[in-house]
Structure formats: structure tokens, C-alpha cells
């Protein structure tokens, strides 16, 4: 999952970085439109649906995104 997320972040943010250390506050390119591009890419890559309320939760950092996807996949399987 981390490999997939790294690829998505690299494609969308168009930067080389240690993605585990980046977040919306320390990455200028991570603006609101970029965030929506990330949300759509996550939906398409992991076959999940992200609600408007959940989009806000993803605004924190890398580990939060990983936790969110894992929980979402689990919930959709159950």
C-alpha cells in the first residue's frame, strides 16, 4: 500500500520527497485542488468511495492517509 501511495503522491505533487514526512502544512504544492486530485486518485486506485466529511480527515499526513485507506477497505469488505 505504501508503494502505491508514494506513487500517487509523486504523480500528483510532482516532487521527490520522503513522503512519510510530508503533510499539508509543510508542502506548499499540497493545496485544495491538489488534495481533491489525491482523493480521486485514492478512490480509483483502491476502489473506495471518500465522502465529503472524510475528505477533511485526509488533510493531516501520510500515516493518517494509510490508516484511513486500511480502515475504509476493511469496512467495505465487511
Amino acid at each position, binding site marked *: 500500500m505504501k508503494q502505491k501511495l508514494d506513487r500517487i503522491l509523486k504523480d500528483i505533487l510532482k516532487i521527490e520527497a520522503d513522503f512519510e514526512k510530508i503533510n499539508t502544512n509543510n508542502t506548499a504544492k499540497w493545496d485544495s485542488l491538489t488534495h481533491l486530485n489525491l*482523493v480521486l486518485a485514492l478512490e480509483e486506485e483502491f476502489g473506495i468511495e471518500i465522502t465529503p466529511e472524510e475528505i477533511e480527515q485526509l488533510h493531516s499526513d501520510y500515516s493518517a492517509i494509510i490508516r484511513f485507506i486500511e480502515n475504509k477497505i476493511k469496512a467495505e469488505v465487511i
Partner: protein
Amino acid sequence: MIKLSHIGIVVENIEEYLKNAVCSVVKTTVFDSIQRSRIALVEIGSGQPDIELIEPVDDEATTFNFLEKTGGGLHHLCYDVDSEEELNELLKQRGIKRIFGPAEAVLFGGKKIMFGYTRNREIVEFIIIDS
């Protein structure tokens, strides 16, 4: 029923843009405090969609980053929808993500507007006619 209302273009300065624009008949100009932008509606012709020129006034404007990144240009297409129910159904069917709104828009006489983002990575606006 859905109808194309206008085409939104972000510009650095409305008056400068109009000097070289194909269509330059301004119907109205307002300051939108929510978008923190000056906005002008330019007429193309009777029965045709308008052109909306959006000039961000400071770095808190909703289109400031767009202007910074792109230098301005085509920003969104705006559609009229009859009701909020019709809009919600459309968002669900097409997987459009809500960016902003519904909120009252001074440019459209207080009618509610909403901005969304499509799966084609395009910004769209909707005017809710019965609001």
C-alpha cells in the same frame, strides 16, 4: 433541466483583459466577498451563455492559487440546475466532489451556487435556480 450558464475565466485584471477580448460588453460587475474577487459578467449574445471574468483581489481569494499557478485562463464551466435535489442527484451519479457551497452569490441575485470537481479533473459551478 441542466443548461450551460457561463464560462468562468480567471484574470489578473478585468479591464486589461477586456481590451483584447473577443466579447467585451459587460452586463454587470460586482465584488464577491466570499470569493474575495471582483467579478464581471460579459455578454456574448442573446440566448447564449455569458463569460464570467474573475479577478482575485488578494491571496485569500478562492482563485488566487489558480492565478499564481497558471497565470489565469479557463477556470470552470457553470450550469443552471433546477433545484438542490437535482444537483445532489447529479453529484452522486457523476461522482463530483463538492469544493464549496451551496452559498448565496451576489452576482446571481442571491441565488445559491456550488463549486465541484469532476472525475475528469475539471472545476464546475452550479447555479440552483429555485434557491
